C-alpha cells in the first residue's frame, strides 16, 4: 500500500509532539484530554441529534408520511428545537423517589455509551485510544448502561418502571452472550482483539465476504442481539409503551429524559459501529479484485466517510426492523435467545474455527 493521504497518524503524532515539547508533560496530557473530550462531546451531540432526525424521517417514509418538515428546510432543525425544548422543560420532582439514585441513573446510562465510543476507530489513526483488547472493552463498557436502567426503574418508585427495568435486566443478561459469541467468531477469523488490527486485517476483503457463511450468520446474530441490547426495535420491552406507558423512564422529564433518549440513539450508533468494524471492514474502502480503476476511485473517498456511510446503512437496517415488527413478549424474547440464537451461535463458532483452520476463507 502506497502512502495514504488520509492517514492521520502522523498528524496526530505531530500535535502530540508539539504539546509535549511546549508544555510540562502533566499539562500537555490535560490539554490533550480536553481537546479529545470536547471533540467527542461535540461529535456525540451532533450524531445524537442527527440520528433522532434520521429516525423520524425514516419512519415517516416507511409510514407514508412526510416527517418533520416545519423547522428549517426539510425540518432539519427539528431535533435542535426539540432539544432546546427539553432543556427548558421543568424537571418534575418525584417526592417518593430515591433521590440520589434517581438523579444518578441518567448519568450512568450516558457515561456508559460515551465511554464506548472512545475505542472505536473512525478512520486511519482517528481513534481516541487503541486498546489491545478493544472489542472486550467496548462490549464491557456498553453493557454498563443497564445498571442505569435498573437504577432508574427501581428508584422511580413506579410499578411500571420497575417492571420495565426488570425486563431490561433479564434481556441484557441473556443477549450479552450472543453479542459476545458473535464477536468471538470474528475474533477467531481476525486473530486479534485490537480493533485497529481487525480493520487492518480486512484490507484485502471485508470479513462478511471473506468469512462467507459463518461470518454472515454471525452478522445476523449480532444484529438481532445488539438490537435487543440497545432496547430497540422489536425488543423494546423495557419501555414497551403500549404495556408499560414508558417503562423505566416513565417518571423522568426534561433534560434527564433527554439523556435517556440520547443514550438510546448513541447505543444504536455504537453497535452499528461495532458491526461496521467487525463485519464491513471499518473505514476500509470497497475494493474489487482486478478492477484497478474502480479501486482507485474508491480510495479517493476519505475513510471517515466510508466508515460513517457503512454505519448509517447498518443503523438504517435497525430502524427498518423497528418500524416493521411487533414487539416480543418477555418469555419469547428469552426463548429466541436460548433456543435459537445461542445454539446457532455455538455451532457457528465451531464452523468458523474449522474455516480458519482449513483456510477455507478467502
Amino acid at each position, binding site marked *: 500500500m502506497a502512502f495514504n493521504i488520509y492517514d492521520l497518524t502522523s498528524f496526530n503524532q505531530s500535535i502530540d509532539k508539539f504539546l509535549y515539547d511546549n508544555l510540562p508533560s502533566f499539562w500537555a496530557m490535560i490539554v490533550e484530554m480536553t481537546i479529545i473530550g470536547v471533540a467527542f462531546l461535540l461529535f456525540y451531540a451532533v450524531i445524537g441529534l442527527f440520528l433522532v432526525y434520521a429516525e423520524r424521517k425514516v419512519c415517516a417514509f416507511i*409510514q407514508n408520511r412526510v416527517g418533520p418538515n416545519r423547522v428549517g428546510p426539510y425540518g432539519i432543525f427539528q431535533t435542535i428545537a426539540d432539544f432546546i425544548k427539553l432543556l427548558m422543560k421543568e424537571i418534575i420532582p418525584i417526592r417518593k423517589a430515591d433521590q440520589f439514585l434517581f438523579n444518578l441513573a441518567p448519568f450512568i446510562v450516558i457515561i456508559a455509551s460515551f465511554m464506548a465510543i472512545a475505542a472505536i476507530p473512525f478512520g486511519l489513526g482517528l481513534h481516541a485510544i487503541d486498546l489491545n483488547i478493544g472489542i472486550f472493552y467496548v462490549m464491557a463498557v456498553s453493557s454498563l448502561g443497564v445498571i442505569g436502567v435498573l437504577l432508574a426503574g427501581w428508584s422511580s418508585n413506579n410499578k411500571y418502571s420497575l417492571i420495565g427495568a426488570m425486563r431490561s435486566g433479564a434481556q441484557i443478561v441473556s443477549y450479552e452472550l450472543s453479542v459476545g459469541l458473535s464477536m468471538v467468531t470474528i475474533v477467531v477469523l481476525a486473530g486479534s482483539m485490537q480493533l485497529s488490527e481487525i480493520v487492518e486485517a480486512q484490507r484485502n476483503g471485508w470479513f462478511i465476504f471473506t468469512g462467507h457463511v459463518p461470518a454472515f450468520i454471525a452478522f445476523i446474530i449480532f444484529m438481532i442481539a445488539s438490537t435487543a441490547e440497545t432496547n430497540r426495535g422489536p425488543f423494546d420491552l423495557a419501555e414497551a409503551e403500549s404495556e408499560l406507558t414508558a417503562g423505566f423512564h416513565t417518571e423522568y422529564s426534561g433534560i434527564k429524559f433527554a439523556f435517556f433518549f440520547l443514550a438510546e440513539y448513541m447505543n444504536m450508533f455504537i453497535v452499528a459501529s461495532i458491526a461496521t468494524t467487525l463485519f464491513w471492514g471499518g473505514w476500509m474502502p470497497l475494493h474489487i479484485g482486478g478492477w484497478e480503476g474502480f479501486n482507485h476511485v474508491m480510495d479517493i473517498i476519505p475513510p471517515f466517510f466510508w466508515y460513517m456511510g457503512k454505519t448509517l446503512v447498518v443503523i438504517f437496517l435497525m430502524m*427498518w426492523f423497528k418500524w416493521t415488527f411487533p414487539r416480543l413478549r418477555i418469555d419469547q424474547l428469552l426463548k429466541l435467545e436460548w433456543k435459537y440464537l445461542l445454539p446457532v451461535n455455538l455451532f457457528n463458532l465451531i464452523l468458523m474455527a474449522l474455516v480458519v483452520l482449513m483456510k477455507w476463507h478467502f
Partner: protein
Amino acid sequence: MNAIINYLKELFGGIKTLLTGMSVTGYYFVHPKAIITQQYPENRKTLKMFDRFKGEVTMPHDENNQHKCTACSICEINCPNGSIEVISKQVEKEDGKTKKELDIYKYHLDMCTFCGICIKVCPQDAIIFSQGFEHAVFNKAKLIKTLNKPGSSLKEKVKEVKEVI
C-alpha cells in the same frame, strides 16, 4: 432427525415471514409517491370540503340583505341540544296587522352536534350548513353566533308555513 428438520423449518419459516413484512415497509420507503400527508395550513387555498359537509349552521342572505326565516321556531323545537334560539318580535305592518318577524337567530355552535335535523325540518330552507370547519376560538363566547345579519329582513313571497310539529 425430525426434530432437527422441524427446528430448521421453524427457524427459516419465521425468517421468511419477517422478510415478507420488511418487503412491505421497504416498498413504501422507496416509494415516496405513496405519501398521503396533506400539508394543512399551506393547502388552505386549494382545500375544498364536500358540498354536504356539515360545518356550521348558517343563514344565507341575498344581495338585498334578506333572509327566508319566518321565525316559526320549528328548528328550535326540533334541536335535540337546545343550540338554537329563535327570538322573534311583533312588527306592525302598514295595513295595521301585527306580524311575527325574526329578531335574533341565536346559534350555539358549542352545543351543536351537527345532526342536521334543523336543516331537514326547516319549511323555508332558510338555514343551511356551510362548509367552514375552523371553529377554534380562544373565547367560548364567540361560539354563540347570531345568524341573521343586522338590518336584514324577510324575503317576500315566502310560501305559507307547512304544518310540521
